[in-house]
């Protein structure tokens, strides 16, 4: 078992407009890509964010060795409940997921 963040080169989260959050996992090698793309389930990511799996948009992009996940923002950007205006601090939730 290892954390995604220790397998990938970089895990980045960012707003994709005020209503969506997008997480890019830059795997950095074909092996890391195969391990993460195959080992990280969408359900696992959805559970981290407390949202239904079917609301997660997922893109596995072998050419870039990137797994990209877009999620409806846990709180809409800038609302009273929002804790992270730029959506850039949610990456660790994914980086700390352990996979085989």
């Amino acid at each position, binding site marked *: 078992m290892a954390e995604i963040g220790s397998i990938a080169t970089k895990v980045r989260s960012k707003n*994709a407009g005020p*209503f*969506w959050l*997008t997480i890019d996992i830059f795997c950095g090698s074909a092996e890391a890509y195969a391990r993460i793309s195959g080992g990280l389930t969408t359900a696992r990511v959805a559970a981290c964010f407390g949202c239904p799996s079917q609301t997660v948009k997922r*893109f596995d992009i072998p050419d870039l060795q990137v797994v990209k996940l877009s999620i*409806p923002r846990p709180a*809409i950007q*800038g609302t*009273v409940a929002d804790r992270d205006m730029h959506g850039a601090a*949610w990456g660790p939730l994914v980086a700390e997921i352990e996979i085989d």
Partner: protein
Amino acid sequence: MTRILIPSGALGLGYDADALAAGIAMRPDLIAIDGGSTDSGPSYLGRGVSKYSRAATKAEWRGLIEARARAGVPLVIGTAGTCGADSAVDWLVDLTREILAETGLTASIAVLKSSQPAQRVADALARGDVTPLPNAPEISAEVLASCTNIVALAGAEQIARALETGAEIVIAGRTTDTAIIAALPLMRGEHAGAAWHGAKIGECGALCATNPQSGVIVIDVDKTGFTVTPLAEGSACSPQTVSAHMLYENSDPFILYEPGGHLDVTGARYTALDARRVRVEGSVWVPSDRYTVKLEGARITGYQTILIATLRDRRYVENVRDWCADIEVRHAAKVRDRMGLEPGAYRLELRLMGVDATLGPLEQRRSDPVEIGILAIVTAASQAQAGEIGKLLNPYLLHHPLTREEEQPTFAFPFSPAEIDRGAAYEFCLNHVMRLDDPMSAFALEVING
């Protein structure tokens, strides 16, 4: 071929003057720069103001106006003043007049305005011409009327109308990030997929290159594709850096919706021309049968007062959740007793900095912090009320004991007064598109001489 020079990802972030000069020497057909984004939150649109300092904006805009005069080509800014509301456009027009007066330069200025009267959008909503995008909040005529600003995002069509006036400077309100770059290549009949894809790659300046801080970039669009060239010393683009830029702040890295259609880059091919430049072909523009523009709106959600206290006593750090829960109960009773306000009439949140202030209930890690910052956020119907609720909280944050028996503790306040009035808090309340019969019907274009 149409050559667009992009000095940086946003006016106010700075650009490399030597790289800009190198770009001007390449004889571009147009200089395009973005002035804003929603990324810093709803307050800027809500208030209709710029995020960046007036001094930084003026210095950088002056450099671009002077570069434009040397090059003799149009200079276009989209989403002026961060939010692109009419007041922010007016602010940049005033700055432009000042700069022209100070430099002795003259220019004709096309001003494109994007603000929407709430009634126009409410009428469109009633006609069924306003459609929600995924994860959009519910809206109604009342919600629209409560917005302090509503803008529509102009596309290439409206920028083209502004350029057709022959203006030397175009100051546009809210536009899509890409429209200011794509408009001229599209007007000249270049490859539409390449125009939009090149615009998307270029819109953040050199963020698509290896040295993203350097800013300046050139996009050449022709009949079959586009070429991207970064200009700062030591900066390079590779097929990897360019294609990876489609991931950035995009929920879908292959499809980009614009007024009048969408870009599909699924079949795009990225080729290194040399160690610095990348050629892209195979992107497709798919026109839609309905012409729609995206709407953004912001409204006041309440007024806020915040307080900050820090706990360093180990027993309080270890029992912070019990301490907060007890404070919340006692404070709510005090507010009811002194102000006659029920808990549902305002909101108090105690965020634990050092514990889970960033992720809240989603946080999965537990640690043993040395100290904890308490960020108390009061949101109420008026600033006066928020301030009063904050003042009633003050003694608890300062002195509240974990048990009745112990001597009264005192915690650390970094400021006097401890209450900090934040003013109005805003929220985005539109994620919708509005159908237009005529692309100009929701936008105003005026040419002035400065």
